[in-house]
């Protein structure tokens, strides 16, 4: 029903566009000069169709359920029900009307369900009638109003600006909302667990918090030595470090090759191929790390007499490094290519070879951009989850041995939030505290990276 109505409104919109334009042509044919191009008249009418429709639809969506509920429950007033019981009755009514109610059916509820259905259908048809009549009225009003000297271009431009503004506002508000939910939950978490214990504690053992019966009162002392984040911060930076040890040299060297040495033809094929690496879902990298690289490293280690865990920081970090290669190679390729040709010419004309030119002129000139690309790579490494969960285990060991398993912030968030959680429980809130610290770290890295990249751009423009 709603869909049909919607299609109808869209068709009306197109029709009013057509009518608006036709009227403009008619005015034009009487040798009057228009104040705007004919299609602006069309858009103007279409907007007069879209805005009322949108307003009525949103008002309806807000008020219809409340009004229907009031009407249904008015039958039960003066019978001494509590608010909670009334809500239950309403939910039962709705379930019964959808045919999903499995409990005992009383005649009262049956009557309510019938009433509910009839109210809904009245609401639907009245909505259709109201929307369509208002649209037609508003379009007709606007159609009469437009003449050779009416302003249509300015309202249309204003409308477009408003639409674009709304879109960016939605993105910004979402960000703000997420950050605030992180902040509030984190504050709640630190009310139970002291900040000091979280930042400097060396035991991360959230499983201890799993055993609490949620009906018991909260006893902060039972969480001492449970949420010490040092091991997982250390693990995060350690795995990111291993990843960057793989990604920086390979990414940088392939970036330099693509920018300076590869012929146009090689570059044309090689660059997209490398960028495909960035398109592989990280979960695929994850099982590549867990099922191929991990056991392979274990075999090699065993043959050398080393004790290698099948889930090692090395496997996770190494595969993560491979994942990051395309970011570094592609970005550094871009910054190297954007170093002006005149600098290369200047260096070649001095008798410098290609490698000398790259080492002494191009690399220093592109350095800020390259640093920016590396920092972006680091923030990806820190934020990566799936590979660690699958390849490096979930036990938060405080270790610097790459052959043992460690865990990271992101992996621990997964551990905490898998399965049932209770809101307001320190265990759940710990995930928010971790998310918050992760957010702060990557935010700082991104800010630094963007600053550096911006500084680089200013230098040559």
């Amino acid at each position, binding site marked *: 029903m709603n869909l049909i109505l919607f299609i109808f409104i869209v068709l009306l919109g197109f029709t009013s566009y057509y009518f608006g334009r036709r009227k403009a042509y008619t005015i034009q044919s009487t040798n009057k000069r228009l104040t705007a191009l004919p299609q602006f008249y069309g858009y103007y009418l279409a907007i007069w169709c879209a805005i009322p429709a949108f307003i009525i639809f949103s008002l309806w969506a807000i008020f219809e359920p409340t009004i229907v509920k009031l009407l249904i429950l008015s039958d039960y007033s003066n019978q001494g029900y509590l608010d909670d019981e009334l809500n239950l009755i309403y939910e039962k009514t709705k379930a019964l009307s959808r045919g999903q109610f499995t409990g005992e059916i009383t005649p009262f509820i049956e009557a309510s369900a019938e009433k509910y259905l009839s109210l809904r259908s009245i609401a639907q048809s009245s909505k259709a009638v109201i929307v369509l009549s208002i649209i037609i009225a508003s379009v007709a009003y606007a159609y009469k109003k437009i003449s050779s000297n009416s302003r249509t271009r300015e309202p249309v431009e204003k409308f477009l600006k408003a639409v674009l503004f709304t879109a960016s506002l939605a993105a910004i508000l979402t960000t703000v909302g997420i950050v605030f939910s992180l902040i509030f939950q984190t504050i709640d978490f630190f009310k139970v667990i002291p900040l000091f214990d979280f930042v400097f504690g060396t035991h991360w053992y959230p499983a201890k918090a799993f055993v609490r019966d949620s009906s018991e009162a909260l006893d902060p002392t039972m969480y001492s030595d449970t949420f010490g984040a040092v091991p997982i911060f250390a693990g995060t930076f350690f795995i990111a470090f291993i990843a960057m040890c793989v990604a920086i040299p390979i990414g940088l060297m392939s970036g330099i090759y693509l920018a300076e040495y590869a*012929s146009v033809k090689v570059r044309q094929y090689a660059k997209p191929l490398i960028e495909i690496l960035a398109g592989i879902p990280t979960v695929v990298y994850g099982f590549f790390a867990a099922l191929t690289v991990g056991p392979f490293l274990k075999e090699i280690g065993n043959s050398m007499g080393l004790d290698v865990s099948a889930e090692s920081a090395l496997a996770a970090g190494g595969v993560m490094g491979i994942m990051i290669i395309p970011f570094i190679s592609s970005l550094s390729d871009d910054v190297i290519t954007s170093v002006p040709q*005149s600098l290369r010419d200047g260096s070649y004309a001095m008798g410098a070879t290609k490698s000398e030119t790259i080492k002494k002129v191009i690399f220093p000139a592109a350095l800020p951009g390259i640093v920016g690309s590396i920092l972006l790579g680091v923030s990806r490494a820190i934020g990566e989850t799936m590979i660690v969960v699958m390849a490096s285990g979930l036990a938060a060991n405080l270790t610097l041995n790459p052959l043992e398993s460690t865990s990271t912030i992101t992996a621990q968030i997964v551990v905490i939030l898998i399965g049932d959680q209770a809101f307001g429980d320190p265990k759940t809130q710990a995930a928010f505290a971790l998310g918050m610290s992760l957010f702060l770290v990557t935010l700082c890295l991104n800010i630094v990276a963007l600053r550096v990249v911006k500084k680089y751009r200013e230098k040559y423009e």
Partner: protein
Amino acid sequence: MKKNGVKMIKINSKNVDVYYGKKQALFNINLDIEENQVTALIGPSGCGKSTFLRCLNRMNDVIDICRVKGQIIINDFDINDKSCDVVRLREKIGMVFQKPNPFPKTIYENISYGPTIHGMAQSKSEMDEIVETSLKKAALWEEVKDRLHEPGTGLSGGQQQRLCIARAISVKPEVILMDEPCSALDPIATAQIEELIDELKKDHTIIIVTHSMAQAARVSQNTGFFHLGELIEHGSTDKIFKNPENKKTQDYITGRFG
């Protein structure tokens, strides 16, 4: 320089053809460049004068699709021969570009770049001396001696171009190629560069590409006129400007086309 009344030829080019892909850019160029003189190459845009200039230090190697045929003989040696070492060649033949292109390094490092590559200084003091003499020869020393370790990109346009000239002469080249060195500069900076060119021809052979006829007349002793990839006429600047043999040369010089 005249020895026994005979002018010494520094560069001798024979039947030089240049192709960009399938398009031929230069047709059978035969041009002799005299030693310790300034030779100006003039002609309308796209006539091939810069292409010819870039043949002389094999800068066209950098462009993938560019092919050079014919002989260019410098010091009795064909630079297009396979045995020619491009690094050594470019040490002998410096180049200054249209737009000043100092490296994003300090003034000192800009000058020491070439001598370092070619291993010309054994010690820090030797390098200091090379930097100082190069800057002095480029008439820039007095302006920058107190800020040698500041970035070269912070200088004014004219200063940057003189820095690039200092960079080019730091490796003591025999020939300096200049590709419209003043086109990005104001008249005062241009006058300084022209004065400098006159000074430099004592030690170097200079070839300058220019769009300014007045500049060619002011700085050069010899002039070559290019048109549509061909060398139409060449000879002493006096003769080319006062008494050209070819109608096209005359038309170009009097400003009828180009």
